[in-house]
């Protein structure tokens, strides 16, 4: 058997030169007359080590990273193909502490398998969840998902199984499964990683959802900023169809299920579920008022399950291992694991999947390794552009839906963006309003007008223009947006703004004003 090495094709690896490294390896093997197979995988999520090159050795896969094309000769001379030590070596990848300390359920296969091979997916336990769902039937499948305690990973945290049951209970010929892959939150990339690294798990999850609720067709709506993910999903859908896992009588069962990939067009608000449905229907991505819920009147007016990528990609393991297995991880009402994404000014940027309950401080300081700039961490934004900024004083907050709500924040899609002490929090608050103004769909007034007024107010406060009075107006505006907006874009923009004001008042010219009063 020829030797095998593994290099990621994940865009997080490509963006730091994985393609050049792969090409250089091909060339080096040719020059040296070596018969080595290069398998292109997804990423393990340890991005500071990308391009990470793994070698299949007797003791497991041995990793080297970050590898540059210029390192290859030295690596091969050092005996890389036998897994021998080198200064870039990290040992057996599965034993590497950053990875070993995680609980990988949703990301079990990501970075390990070939995302274009249905066979490889099946060889790593793929489609066991579907087999179970087919064996127990739709009703028991929904019960299993309810038992698991899985909540929507897109950010809202609504119990996935309950959503499914609502759709299953509707009496219509046509229902839809829609996967929300419009991952627009800064600081998040978990959906992208699944789609590029383990696309079949998402297809399997959607298929199980389809069987469970009686839907025969699904759409994956992927943002256009993710061309690599779109390509990966399109290839996987084709492969699954070819392999009988999509289409008529899937896997030889009595069920039909097929799906297609649709590309977004650069609108952040389309990550909001009703806006996404409008967009899929070919319209402006304007938010719908709820009720009616998409579960009753969704895509093309039909009952629709709309779930985030991570929610759907977690279903196969819930089915194959059982709901209780998943439920037994986590804390309180946050069950199972959360794929946490470490981003921004951070040493160890990447994906850390772990049970709910780990503290924010442990994630940022211990696992993230602090800032890349080696300066003190001053603030972290959790949950994307609509998430709150946390100061170090709140680093004991456990990663849990309820605990974050209690701290006036949200975990959202699980992204953590780290800022060092050079950050200007007034600027960040202004940006939150500015971003909302750019991306507002325009349907409701608090969001459309409020965000524009918000930018002006922050400017006035920082300039010291009647700051005390304008602070009161800003707070009032935030309340109007929070309670008066149709969706989370306008409704949650106050989180970053108010948290910046509450925890970092000194950045809003408060000191200057205090001095003036004295």
């Amino acid at each position, binding site marked *: 058997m020829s030797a095998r090495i593994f290099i990621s094709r994940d865009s997080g690896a490509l963006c730091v030169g994985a393609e050049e490294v792969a090409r250089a390896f091909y060339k080096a093997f040719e020059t040296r007359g070596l018969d080595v197979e290069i398998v292109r995988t997804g990423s393990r999520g340890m991005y500071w080590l990308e391009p990470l090159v793994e070698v299949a050795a007797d003791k497991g896969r041995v990793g080297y990273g970050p590898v540059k094309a210029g390192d290859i000769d030295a690596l091969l001379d050092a005996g890389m193909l036998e897994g021998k030590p080198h200064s870039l070596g990290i040992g057996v990848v599965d034993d590497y502490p950053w990875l070993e300390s995680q609980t990988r359920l949703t990301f079990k296969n990501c970075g390990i398998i070939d995302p274009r091979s249905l066979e490889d997916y099946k060889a790593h336990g793929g489609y066991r969840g579907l087999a179970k769902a087919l064996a127990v039937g739709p009703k028991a499948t929904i019960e299993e998902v309810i038992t698991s305690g899985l909540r929507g990973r897109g950010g809202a945290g609504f119990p996935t199984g309950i959503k499914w049951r609502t759709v299953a209970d509707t009496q219509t010929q046509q229902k839809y499964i829609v996967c929300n892959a419009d991952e627009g939150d800064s600081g998040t990339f978990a959906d992208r990683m699944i789609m590029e690294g383990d696309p079949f798990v998402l297809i399997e999850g959607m298929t199980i959802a389809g069987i469970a609720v009686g839907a025969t067709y699904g759409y994956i709506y992927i943002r256009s900023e993710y061309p690599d993910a779109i390509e990966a999903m399109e290839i996987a859908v084709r492969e699954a169809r070819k392999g009988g896992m999509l289409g008529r009588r899937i896997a030889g069962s009595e069920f039909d299920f097929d799906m297609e990939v649709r590309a*977004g067009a650069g609108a952040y608000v389309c990550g909001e579920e009703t806006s996404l449905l409008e967009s899929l229907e070919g319209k402006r991505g304007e938010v719908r008022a709820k009720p009616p819920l998409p579960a009753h009147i969704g895509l093309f007016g039909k009952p629709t399950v709309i779930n985030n990528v991570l929610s759907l990609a977690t279903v196969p393991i819930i089915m194959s291992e059982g709901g209780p297995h998943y439920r037994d991880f986590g804390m309180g009402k946050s069950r199972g694991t959360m794929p946490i994404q470490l981003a*921004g000014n951070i040493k160890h940027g990447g994906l850390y999947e772990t049970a709910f309950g780990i503290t924010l401080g442990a994630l940022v300081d211990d696992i993230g390794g602090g800032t890349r700039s080696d300066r003190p961490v001053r603030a972290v934004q959790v949950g994307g552009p609509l998430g709150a900024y946390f100061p170090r004083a709140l680093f004991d907050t456990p990663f849990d839906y309820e605990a974050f709500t209690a701290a006036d924040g949200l975990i959202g899609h699980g992204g953590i963006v780290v800022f060092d002490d050079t950050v200007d929090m007034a600027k960040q608050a202004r940006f939150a309003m500015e971003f909302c103004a750019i991306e507002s769909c325009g349907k409701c007034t608090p969001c459309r007008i409020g965000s524009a007024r918000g930018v002006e107010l922050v400017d006035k406060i920082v300039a010291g223009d009647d700051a005390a009075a304008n602070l009161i107006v800003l707070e009032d505006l935030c309340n109007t947006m929070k309670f008066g907006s149709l969706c989370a874009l306008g409704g949650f923009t106050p989180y970053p703004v108010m948290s910046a004001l509450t925890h970092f008042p000194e950045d809003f010219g408060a000191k200057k004003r205090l001095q003036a009063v004295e």
Partner: protein
Amino acid sequence: MPRHEPWDAERAGEIIARYRHLEGAGLPILHALQETFGCVPDEAVPLVAEALNLSRAEIHGTATFYHDFRKQPAGRRVLKLCRAESCQAAGGDALAARAEAKLGVAMGETTLDNRVTLEPVYCLGLCHSSPAAMLDKHVFGMLDEAKLDQLVKEAQA
């Protein structure tokens, strides 16, 4: 060699015909038109409306709602710099200013020689390796001044 074809109503009709059978064909058609012509020309709007049995206003509304769809073709290369929070935290603002200075254009503009369009993007999902950028469909991360300069040079080439 120009990247895009000049406007041709017959060609547009072919493209529309290829996608009109889809449920919710609006976005796939607009994407395909832009892929071919580099933008969604005004002339295309009535054709799409006719094919989908919708009003021109509806198609115009859709085409202008999304950041992706252009009125005019972009420059030969499109350089997108991520301006979202994660890249801000890692020095993205300074790099954006540097790119503007190097190219002599502001965000959203195209160089006079039509070689490069510089655009902001709000997240490329490469936040683990901020600051990030995209040149056409190729992604770049862990940018610093030297890497950005190289990228700008490549875009201008």
